[in-house]
């Protein structure tokens, strides 16, 4: 028996060394000819950017640089060549040109050894999204900062900035922070925020956003919900956008699908902003280091972004099955991969909407007891007791005409 056990033991030891040969690491580089990657998103700016690359094989540290190419932009609407991109540094190529909204463009890229690479898209117009932001401790419509089309935002705000955005607790009506108005969405629409990181001295995308606009797409939902932070430690009830409490948080982007019918909706946005503008301080300018970007997108860009978001979420997930999914990113580039698309972008300010809930609720209980005391004979909200004083102030200081005062008052 002893001999038998020794024999078994020896054999096991000998075989154990062989087990390691059962598994080997592998880099699955198929060794195929790299594809040309074209990335060009036309924007409403003076200079257009194009990035040209080769795909990188799994076994390589870096892709081969693509330096030899001819890239031409053509305005198909006017049937004329706009110009050729000029190579700058790295993979960046530029062309001095401002695209015209609703014009159709074609990008052609010729790379030696490859067939003609081309793609087409149409430049979108802007989405009518406006914002109003309070500057300082002033009152009245005239003191809003209007973006894009002042008359329309004025009309819209007159028509009804939601009462919850108005701080009635002070002597005058205050619009706290920034309020946005979306009129219609003829193109897919995107909002994202940028924060300035003083450490890296670079702008970084705001990771979490939320809004009370009902049309926002669920594509980017993170699964979390908004908890309004307190602004002042001693006053926990002074919170940032308290009326967004419980609103679903979105990863990085607020996406709005295009809609054929006109909508008119005021909304606010909050999230993990680090902008530090304080609306309680008179005369302080908005902090330019935290801002929002409104982006009107072509359908190609929308589809591309949707897939990018989905694949990125999958990449970050704990679902093992993602390993076996071999879906390529959407590409409208014939003969290559990547994207040729167009967007219309505008920056918008973002400011914090503080609200002292204790004071506001006290005020609100007054309202609930007798709402009529806050309305004028025309049913307009401005005729609260405090508003009357404010209007008189505006009139007396010459900021409101007599007609206006008579009409409102």
């Amino acid at each position, binding site marked *: 028996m002893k001999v038998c056990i020794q024999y078994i033991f020896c054999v096991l030891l000998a075989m154990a060394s062989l087990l390691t040969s059962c598994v080997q690491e592998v880099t699955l580089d198929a060794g195929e000819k790299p594809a040309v*990657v074209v990335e060009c998103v036309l924007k409403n700016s003076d200079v257009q950017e194009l990035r040209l690359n080769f795909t990188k094989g*799994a076994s390589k540290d870096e892709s081969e640089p693509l330096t030899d190419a001819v890239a031409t932009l053509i305005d198909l609407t006017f049937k004329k060549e706009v110009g050729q991109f000029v190579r700058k540094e790295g993979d960046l190529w530029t062309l001095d040109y401002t695209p015209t909204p609703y014009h159709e463009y074609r990008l052609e890229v010729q790379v030696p050894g490859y067939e003609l690479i081309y793609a087409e898209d149409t430049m979108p117009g802007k989405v009518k999204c406006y914002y109003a932001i309070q500057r300082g401790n002033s009152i009245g419509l005239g003191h809003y900062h209007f973006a894009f089309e002042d008359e329309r935002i004025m009309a819209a705000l007159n028509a009804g900035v939601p009462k919850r955005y108005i701080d009635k607790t002070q002597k005058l009506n205050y619009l706290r922070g920034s309020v946005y108005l979306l009129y219609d969405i003829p193109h897919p629409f995107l909002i994202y925020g940028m924060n300035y990181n003083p450490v890296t001295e670079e702008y970084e995308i705001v990771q979490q956003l939320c809004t009370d606009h009902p049309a926002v797409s669920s594509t980017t939902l993170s699964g979390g919900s908004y908890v309004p932070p307190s602004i002042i430690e001693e006053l926990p009830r002074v919170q940032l956008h308290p009326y967004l409490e419980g609103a679903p948080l979105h990863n990085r982007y607020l996406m709005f699908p295009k809609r054929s019918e006109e909508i008119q909706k005021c909304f606010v946005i909050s999230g993990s902003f680090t902008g530090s503008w304080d609306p309680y301080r008179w005369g302080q300018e908005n902090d330019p280091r935290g801002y929002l970007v409104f982006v009107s997108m072509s359908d190609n860009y929308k589809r591309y972004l949707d897939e990018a978001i989905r694949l990125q979420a999958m990449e970050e997930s704990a679902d093992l099955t993602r390993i076996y999914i071999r879906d390529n990113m959407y590409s409208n580039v014939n003969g290559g991969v990547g994207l040729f698309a167009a967007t219309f972008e505008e920056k918008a300010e973002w400011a914090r909407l503080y609200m002292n809930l204790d004071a506001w609720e006290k005020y609100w209980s007054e309202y609930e007891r007798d709402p009529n005391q806050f309305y004028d004979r025309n049913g307009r909200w401005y005729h609260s007791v405090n508003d009357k004083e404010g209007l008189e102030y505006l009139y007396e200081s010459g900021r409101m005409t007599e007609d206006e005062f008579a009409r409102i008052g």
Partner: protein
Amino acid sequence: MKKHLIIIAISLLICPIIISAQEWDPQHDTLDAAVKTDSRRVVESLGKMTTSVEGVRRVISPLGEGDPIRWAQGLPGVTTGADGTTAFYVRGGNMGNNLITLDGVPVYGYSHLLGLTTIVPQDVMSEASLLKGGFEGNSSNFTAGHLKITTKDPNREKFRMSAALNNFLASISMESPISKNTSFLLSARISPLAWEYKAVRGMLPSLLGGFDNFGAGVGDVYGKFRWQTGKRSVLNASFLGSMDGYSFTAADNADEKMGWNNLIGTVNWHVDGNRSFMDLRASVNRYTSSQEQHKEYRGVMNHLTLKSSLIEYMFSFDRTESMFKAFKMDYGTKLRITEFAPGQVASVNNKSNSFLGTVYLQGRYDIEDKLSARATVRGHYYRNMKDKSIKTSMEKIKAGRFDYDASVSVDWKIFKYLSLEATFDRMVQYYHTLEGLPVGWSLDMIVPSSREIAPENALQGNLGLSSQIGKHTVSAGGFYKKMNDLVYYKYAQSLFSGGMASWESDVDMGQGRSYGAEFLHEYVGKDLYTRVSYTWSKTDRFGFPSINEGGEFHARFDRRHVLNAVAQWKGFSAAVTLQSGHWENGAAETYPMHVPGAEWTADYFSGVNNYHMPTVFRLDLGYMFSFETGKVKHDVNVGVCNATNHFNPFMLYFDAVTEGWKMIALLPILPNFSYRISF
């Protein structure tokens, strides 16, 4: 996946300590004349090759004794899946396009012991045939190869018993007459895998790393009762039950279980007439499989339980009549009612029943030493009961579909030493296998055709020449095969996936094409036997809308060159396998992409099955000898599989810990030693 490999490795470690042997029983040889010249010769025609159980046994395998699939894997026109397992592919078809029958009854979960062998014990086997073309009339519902396994009749003269032990299986079998007209055959096997694991665990715990709690329940039972009901009539009743169950805890604390079971009961009544014979057969076939996984990945526990089952009730009638001197007519019918329950996860209900009725008519014309021709036509009526909610009988009939298929084969002896062979087949298959890992494990879901998933069909032709001169037999030929409505399961590599419950949305249908040349040479001497088979082929897939944008891509086991050589001299055996590597999905190429406020990296997959795996090479050596002590016969097999310890990776797996890909090979150098006694 690594854990499965460890299971096998544990078992392999123990091989030298357990011995097995082989039984030498007199065989009731039913082979055709060409084969009877020597039991080792396999060539019957290019389309059909047959061997006796002795030929099967001499195949060197990790178990120390071969099995019909390992024998078939060495033939021309056949490529293999994972090296060392029972996965095999015939003339460009999928693994699930093969039909494996035991006495005419399909065996769906045929693999045993993690794919190392089949569930049919050698003790009950009489012969095995592989048909690649010119299919017989009563063979249907497949499109690639037909591996026919025939069991032997119980001994009617005297009681016989044998016992064998090898590293993976302990077996016992007996056969005996009961009365003048009745006899029985009984065989049982069980695997000591779990006990071996405990022994290794006790002696070399470090070897197993975090691999723990291994359990295995592997075994099978076969019984056959024969009743000579009359001078020319025999009633056979048989059953086969098999069980494969494995569980373990892996190094990353993942608990995993998997297994499959077969239960097949058959009653067959055979009647011989003066110029005819007839078979009536009824069978019930139940095949189930299950998988469970509780695995943590990136801090999240993934739980999955997946069960599948198939129950088939089959009735068949076959009759052969000699019409004229050289002409025979075969005809018959086969009716199947099948209950499918694939991919049952939680409350998901994928159950559906199907009916498949087949009738066939076959004519055979034989002029001895001149011409042998056969023509077959089959008609099928198929209906998936889930397809339509219907009321009247006519609506029920219309909800089904009619198909036909046909086979033609001609063997014309042009000269004394030269024959021309040609076959043509059109075959239809109504059951689809969603193929997963190429290891031959019977875990792949079998699903029925439906309105959304059409039956697969294949057209193939084969033309060749063969010559037998003295002790040499040479055959060479070419084939072309076109496959339509092939089913492609997109998540084949995902062994455990809750997504399998929604399989209907994860399959795609397209086409396949395969063509190639096959060559075979056999030498049958007094002591020396050699066989060299070589296949050159090209197999691709195309027309799958969601895969590779409908473009062409390699079939996974599109091995361009496959060379198998066998030499046997007295008790010594040597076998060489040299095969082109198969195809896996290459890793993505990457490229930078910019989204608002961020730069990400995107994956770019230029195609599927675009990474060529390394060439497979394996040298197996064996020696068998027998001796007797009194009335007891002892048979001993010793051998080494993969004597050069060549790394033959068969698949890739994603290591969730390192987040990288790894190649796996099953068989390192592996000595085997088996022992059998019989009396």
